[in-house]
């Protein structure tokens, strides 16, 4: 059928991305054989490296450090030009001078998660034992593993207590895991559009994405680098499906409606007649330029396994008993991936633990992705929460709340 276009063309920047995997253009903390990362699956991973970025200066008391945890397909490039895509940072709305996470006040750290593909050790990295890419030989990682690796990085940076751990989606899971695992090291926690456990529906969507990747003949059982193929079609489909879950019915309708793409009438084909199809295809093809297929499998799996209560006899409140950390939990009305009910369950558990918690649901039609967007009410709440926590922390907030 001549009128069927492939979803994507082969990745343009795949060489750039491959280079970033082992030699990232950001800071790198290397951990040798003597400092293994103890993984939940039982493997001691060594050596390994964590790629990270920092913004701002650590104060003399070392009390102003904020750890930003990135979401599934994010990376350490929070607030700088991305080395592969050439675009701005993924959280430019939140981080920057004059923004809620202001590098002129705070020392902001963001590291690529273990299992990622932007410089931290993951399935796309070279396995030192074989001198080949790890692929599916890489051990399965979990959200607690990601946090354990970050804690080793924070140790290396000489920081005992983080002023705040912030994250949305998978980043929010890490923020909660940080607080549950190292309560004395986390002064405040900002958990956005996330959950303490991955729901059955979300696991189902992830399985769909993974099956799409694995159904791509170019995936080659995960050995596509050795065999010099690019499984970009499968990953693009996975991204397209996932992207729908990040939006909302209302947002899609507002943005695209049933409008046609560069045409007046339907072509009576499977070409991208509708704008929404064209948009999704673009999302899929641009994603594969910067992301590794196997890494996508590993990170979605880590989210699936996440269940804080499961590690505490099924009682979520036990994970936070007696905790001193200040919490701010934020959800969005149109987020159906991590709906408000998930945040509310967390808030109930925190109340039962007598934790100091603020919880706000933000009205927006922009779905799960709202946490990455310019939603003023959300940004104001983050700013106010950090300001109030900063006062309690004794940070110099003489310039006040803007």
């Amino acid at each position, binding site marked *: 059928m001549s009128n069927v276009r492939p979803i994507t063309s082969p990745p343009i920047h795949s060489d750039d991305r491959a280079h970033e995997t082992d030699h990232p253009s950001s800071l790198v903390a290397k951990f040798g054989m003597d400092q293994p990362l103890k993984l939940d699956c039982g493997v001691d991973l060594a050596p390994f490296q964590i790629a990270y970025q920092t913004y701002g200066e650590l104060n003399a008391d070392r009390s102003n450090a904020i750890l930003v945890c990135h979401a599934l397909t994010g990376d350490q490039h929070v607030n700088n030009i991305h080395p592969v895509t050439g675009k701005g940072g993924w959280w430019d709305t939140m981080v920057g001078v004059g923004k809620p996470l202001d590098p002129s006040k705070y020392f902001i750290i963001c590291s690529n998660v273990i299992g990622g593909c932007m410089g931290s050790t993951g399935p796309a990295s070279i396995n030192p034992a074989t001198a080949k890419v790890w692929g599916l030989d890489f051990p399965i990682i979990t959200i607690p593993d990601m946090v354990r690796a970050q804690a080793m990085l924070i140790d290396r940076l000489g920081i005992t207590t983080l002023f705040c751990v912030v994250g949305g989606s998978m980043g929010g899971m890490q923020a909660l895991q940080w607080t549950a695992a190292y309560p004395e090291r986390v002064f405040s926690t900002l958990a956005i559009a996330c959950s303490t456990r991955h729901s059955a529906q979300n696991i189902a969507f992830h399985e769909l994405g993974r099956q799409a990747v694995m159904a791509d003949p170019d995936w080659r059982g995960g050995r596509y680098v050795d065999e010099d193929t690019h499984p970009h079609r499968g990953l693009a489909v996975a991204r397209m499906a996932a992207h729908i879950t990040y939006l909302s019915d209302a947002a899609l309708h507002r943005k695209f409606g049933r409008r046609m793409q560069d045409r007046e009438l339907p072509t009576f084909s499977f070409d991208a007649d509708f704008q929404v199809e064209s948009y999704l295809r673009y999302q899929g093809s641009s994603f594969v330029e910067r992301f590794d297929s196997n890494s996508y499998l590993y990170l979605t799996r880590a989210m699936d396994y996440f269940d804080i209560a499961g590690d505490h006899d099924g009682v979520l409140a036990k994970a936070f008993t007696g905790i001193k950390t200040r919490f701010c939990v934020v959800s969005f009305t149109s987020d159906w991936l991590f709906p408000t009910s998930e945040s509310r369950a967390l*808030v*109930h558990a925190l109340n039962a633990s007598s934790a*100091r*918690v603020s*919880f706000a*649901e933000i009205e927006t039609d922009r779905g799960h992705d709202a946490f990455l967007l310019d939603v003023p009410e959300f940004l104001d*709440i983050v700013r*106010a*929460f950090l300001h109030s*926590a900063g006062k309690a922390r004794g940070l110099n907030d003489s310039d006040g709340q803007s």
Partner: protein
Amino acid sequence: MNIQHTLPLQGVTPERTGSYRTDHLLVADMVRAGSRVLDVGCGDGELLQLLETRGIDGRGIELSREGVNRCVAKGLAVVQGDADTDLVNYPDDAFDYVILSQTLQATRQPRVVLENLLRIGQRAIVSFPNFGFWKMRLQLLIGGHMPRTENLPATWYDTSNIHFCTIKDFVELCGEINVKMERAVALDLYGRPVPLNLPWWVWNMFGEQGVFLLSRGTKGK
């Protein structure tokens, strides 16, 4: 249910002492310094802010999203929730005081809510509009209408206040569920205390709202 924290409402400006409302100052004076307080139906957080200036660890629950977001934007520890359904999630003795300000009459189960307040908190501070206020009585007696006042301007068909009571009714309920009244104050239309040392029936007639400091009665009375 629409939680009405802020009395007086339209048309009536609450009396203020400095930057604080007189009725809030009265409530704040009932709370010991350094204690832990839960404000149920905390509105836009004005009372919580006052409590925090006195070194009190305050938390809030508020039904309206706008109210919650305004509180969180002030740096207050406030969560979105409903007095009828969410108090059960709090453990026993979690707070020294639980405050329920101008909300009791809008709950579906006032008795259960009251019992929860004194389960979660060692003490409860409850304020509510007094349906025995002389203006209310007069409207029903003379006008033959369901009463509407400056502070309660809603009509019978759109009011969120579904369980009105008088000060006398409330005192009787406290006796029934073995709640001890440690302090009681009646406030006038502007949130000013009605002069003390007057008999109950005077308060029930001239108090526009009642404010009660409650604790758990001794078992078996």
